[in-house]
């Protein structure tokens, strides 16, 4: 039995837990806790403290685990642990909250430093009326054109599948590319 893992990361409340919930075949083992600070409570009720954990069984001897990181900075000691041995990672950004873009960028860089694996950026909550346009987000996030920035609605399974597939295509491409 082989297990592979992908990590879903991003700022507080970007939709990481929701993303994993939409495709996991098990109830996501979310380690959520009621939020303590008033600022954060204004945004949402519960936050992930250790990690989310979802699973997709491929066949008898292959299982994909999806790990969602805690978004709050004070839990970032879990990040490196979660990233060990990952096949690739997804950085989720809430398209409606530009004040989190800078942090999203910094999380992206932190994960890139852990491992040189492929990654994609998901512009989440594209169903919201005040969501930013992809091209504006690309500029704000300072993403170079070769990095995939994908529209996402974490509550919709098809959109989540698309993000996962795009990441897998990048992984495949890199494997092919590195062949000498």
């Amino acid at each position, binding site marked *: 039995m082989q297990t592979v893992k992908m990590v879903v990361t991003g700022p507080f409340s970007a939709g990481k837990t929701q993303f994993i919930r939409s495709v996991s075949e098990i109830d996501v083992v979310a380690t959520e806790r009621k939020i303590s600070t008033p600022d954060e409570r204004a945004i949402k009720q519960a936050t992930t403290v250790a*990690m989310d954990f979802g699973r997709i*069984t491929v066949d008898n001897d*292959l299982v994909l685990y999806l790990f969602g990181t805690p978004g709050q900075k004070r839990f970032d000691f879990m990040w490196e642990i979660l990233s060990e041995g990952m*096949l690739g990672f997804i950085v989720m950004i809430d398209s409606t909250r530009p004040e989190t873009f800078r942090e999203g960028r910094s999380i992206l860089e932190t994960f890139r430093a852990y491992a040189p694996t492929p990654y994609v950026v998901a512009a989440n909550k594209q169903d919201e009326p005040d969501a930013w346009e992809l091209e504006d987000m690309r500029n704000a996030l300072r993403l170079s054109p070769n990095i995939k920035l994908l529209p996402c609605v974490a509550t919709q399974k098809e959109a989540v599948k698309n993000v996962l597939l795009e990441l*897998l295509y990048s992984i*495949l491409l890199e494997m092919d590319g590195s062949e000498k």
Partner: protein
Amino acid sequence: MALRGNLRDFTVTQLLNLINLAHKSGTLVIDGSNETAQISFRDGKLAYAQIGQEDNHLAAILHRFKRLSAGQLRAIHLRADHLNDKELGLLLINAGYISQEEILSLLQSYFIDVVRRLFKWVDGAFQFEYNLHPPADRIPIRLDLENLIIEGARQLREWEQLREEIPSLEMGLKFLDRPETSIQKMNLSLEEWRVVSYINPKNTIKQIASVTKLNDMEIRRIIYGLLQAGLVEVVRQGSTPRVEILRSPVTPLFKEKQISLVQRLITRIRSI
């Protein structure tokens, strides 16, 4: 039965023997010359150990065995200090970072190590406290004492022998071309595996001890075991010893296999 006295009259090995035979539960408290040790037992099995001021929390032990980097340890102290050992253990298991078996086996290695250190104590008042048990938030183990007892009894003799067998640590080691034992069949401990992974004629025993953080006696014992098993032999060092440690490479997954794995993932996700 009140169990108290001094190690001058009753050795640690003899105490373990007694606790084992009588299936005792409780804590053996020993006041050594510079520090105090507490060894807890349940039904005559080793459950927990604490020596001096040494940090024996799970995080510290994982760090000791290099399962957590110094940075990770610091981060845990800084931000997860409110978690007790059981909670932290669960968190790490759930994160897929370490298995329960590995946690238990590392705790076991550490507790055994503490007991081994006690074998060297020759003086100190001891007392067996029937009502003293490991703190409830710690992860206890259950280890049969038999092997430790045998080890303790052999130790003194063995150490003298070891110094004779491996007089110098400035020698290299190599695997025998036709070993008498296959390495898969040997029941190697984590430490032994770590030593094995550095065996290379270019690395001296001393260098291996230093990267694996083993003391002279520990490295001698492991090397002696490997020599006895007919797995390795000692080679004289060339004139210029290597400074850099060579690590045995891990075999990477074949590229085709990786590609097919990713393709299977793609097919599966499309079908969700």
